[in-house]
């Protein structure tokens, strides 16, 4: 099947515009005009409606905007809220830039793709021009020649508008449509094959969704490059990675305590050590009282007389803390007793931290002092 078209060639844009207008006024059907550049005024001469791509662009832009706002809102407030500098989850001002960018991206790319599809532009498409010079310097007017028109009339009309050549041609009818159907068929076939291949491959490989992904680029966040502390080392002294501390090092939080659990060392501690907390430090005294109430009072009694509640239930009562010889014991030696225990009393190292042991000694001294004051002296005596 082929049909007849009339082809007029022109050298100037003004001529082709005039000819198009004249042909349309003369009742001919303008199939198309081929020009080397966008000729302004030709769309009016051909009677083309304004392009509707504006609306496509608007729709794609609106879609991009809504999608971007939703994505940011949903990820930042619903799916995985993260506190960023105390800003609210839904920080709308901070979402504006990305919403704008995605709107432009969607609108631009979408419009161009719709344009390509609508005007059937695709990579590799063959172009069979009426005149190879249309993309260089010639303007070609193509009229529908199927009607009862006489070539001579048309020739006269176009030549009155300075046409350089007018002739009639046979073009394959429906070429465009046939070619399009074939291309679509081929595309569908290709997509179908690709889909089948993907599904077959998926089935054949039996992919386990729980298996970790293939590591295409080893990440040193997973596989640390630093040395493991307890592994052997080929370069460090004695083959060990973790080196011995230098002589004289003190471990953090462990001050040296060069005293044994003997009466001699207890006496030496009394001479050498002194309480790091002054007796007039109210915070330290208060802490000491609290510690005393927790750990000591149950045996030694609230006043330190050695009459704690356990003594009424068969435990031998300890010596009164207010007794003269107890009062003579130096702070350091008391600390030694607290640390190692003495007679029935066991070590309190595990229960009372070092600083609290010093503080509780402050409290004991205060009990003793209060006992020495006249009013409490009389109380003691009355008992």
């Amino acid at each position: 099947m082929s049909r007849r078209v009339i082809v007029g060639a022109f050298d100037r844009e003004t001529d082709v515009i005039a000819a198009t207008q004249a042909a349309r006024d003369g009742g001919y059907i303008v199939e198309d005009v081929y020009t080397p550049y966008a000729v302004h005024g030709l769309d009016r001469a051909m009677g083309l409606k304004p392009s509707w791509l504006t609306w496509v662009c608007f729709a794609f832009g609106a879609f991009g905007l809504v999608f971007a706002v939703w994505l940011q809102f949903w990820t930042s407030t619903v799916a995985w809220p993260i506190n960023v500098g105390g800003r609210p989850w839904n920080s709308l001002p901070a979402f504006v830039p990305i919403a704008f960018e995605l709107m432009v991206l969607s609108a631009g790319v979408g419009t161009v793709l719709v344009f390509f599809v609508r005007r059937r532009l695709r990579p590799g498409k063959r172009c069979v021009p009426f005149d190879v010079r249309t993309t260089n310097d010639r303007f070609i007017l193509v009229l529908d020649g199927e009607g009862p028109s006489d070539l001579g009339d048309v020739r006269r009309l176009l030549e009155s508008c300075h046409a350089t050549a007018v002739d009639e041609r046979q073009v394959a009818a429906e070429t465009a449509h046939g070619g399009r159907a074939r291309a679509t068929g081929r595309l569908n076939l290709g997509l179908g094959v690709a889909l089948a291949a993907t599904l077959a491959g998926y089935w054949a490989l039996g992919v386990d969704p729980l298996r970790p992904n293939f590591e295409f680029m080893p990440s040193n966040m997973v596989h640390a490059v630093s040395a493991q502390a307890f592994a052997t080392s080929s370069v460090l002294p004695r083959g060990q990675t973790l080196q011995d501390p230098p002589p004289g090092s003190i471990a953090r939080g462990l001050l040296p305590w060069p005293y044994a659990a003997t009466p001699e060392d207890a006496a030496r501690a009394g001479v050498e050590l002194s309480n790091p907390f002054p007796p007039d430090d109210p915070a330290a005294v208060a802490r000491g009282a609290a510690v005393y109430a927790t750990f000591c009072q149950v045996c030694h009694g609230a006043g330190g007389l050695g009459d704690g509640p356990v003594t009424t239930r068969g435990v031998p009562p300890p010596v009164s803390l207010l007794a003269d010889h107890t009062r003579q014991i130096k702070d350091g030696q008391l600390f030694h007793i607290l640390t190692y225990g003495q007679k029935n009393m066991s070590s309190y190292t595990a229960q009372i931290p070092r600083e609290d042991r010093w503080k509780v000694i402050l409290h004991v001294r205060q009990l003793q002092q209060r006992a020495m004051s006249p009013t409490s002296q009389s109380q003691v005596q009355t008992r």
Partner: protein
Amino acid sequence: MAVVARVGGGVACVGALLLAIGGVTAPDRIGANVLLAGYALAGLGLAGAFFTALCYVADATWAVAFRRVPESLTRVLPAAAVLLGAVFLAYPALYPWTGAQGDALVGFKHFWLDRPFFLIRFVVYFAIWIGFATALVRHSRRQDVDGNLTWTRRNVRVSAAFLVVFAITVWLASLDWIMSLTPHWYSTMFGVYNFAGFFQSGVAAILILVIWLERAGPLRGVVRTEHLHDLGKLLFAFSTFWMYTWFSQYMLIWYTNLTEETVYFIARMQTAWRPLVFTILTLNWLVPFLVLMSRPAKRNRGILVKVAVAVLVGHWLDLFVMILPSISPEAPPFGLPEVGALAVAVGLAFLVFVRAFRQASPVPRKDVFLAESLHYHN
């Protein structure tokens, strides 16, 4: 047209009367409202001068046909100077840094915000603006007589120089008159933001005046839909630019959340002023943006006028929200001073514009580019 001038004068007088009564009932708000009126008029005049100068420098001949409109708008500048001068001389207490109520300023700010220096700068700004605007208008009108191309060439040079000093002086003026109402607040964007508002509202005013003058007669047959289409594009573009400056300033201050910067927005966004801010964003950006996006809307006189009016109202409110919270921090005041200030500004604008427009030919009839402007296509 003469009627409009008389009505404008009448409205201005009524406005002045209202202001005077308001001076008795609400004396504390008078200064701020007159400042608002003066500043808005100064912006209008500057926008006219800027538009004219920009067209000369950029060789934008499409606007020649209605160039007398922006030219005549520049004549508003002396009126603005009178209003602003009255405020600065009579109501120094408007500015916390004048010492009466403010805490001491130190260093450079102490030197800059100093009353005599402030007044000197005020005079210098207006001398520069009025000087350049007068030169532009005079050269353009002389061309009507002899049609000599040298006037155009001379105006291109004047315009280039004007644009340089304009950029600097507008920045400093917005800092002096508006930003220093909150003396401890600062923002480098403020001048750009003020310029954007001026030019946007200036284009809106030019649009309204051009359409009105076309309907009233003087520009009939001269102004075409193509001109309005291009003005519509400018309004669209500068509404978006205004939004861009507003958003950039707001977002950077919101994001960083520094105490010394957020004071400005807390006073406007976390008080009863908040609804007004959203009204401004709607009128100044959302309305022009959505309506003028389509091509037919930019070629429709009725729609253009409505959008331009929305923009002008939005701009007035924008200035209102810049100025008044420093006087009335709790809520937007409304009363005789507010109505009076608006009436004075609108009335004076029309009165001065019409008088200036009638002084010369409505079209620069011997400008060599007039033909181009009359026949171009979008």
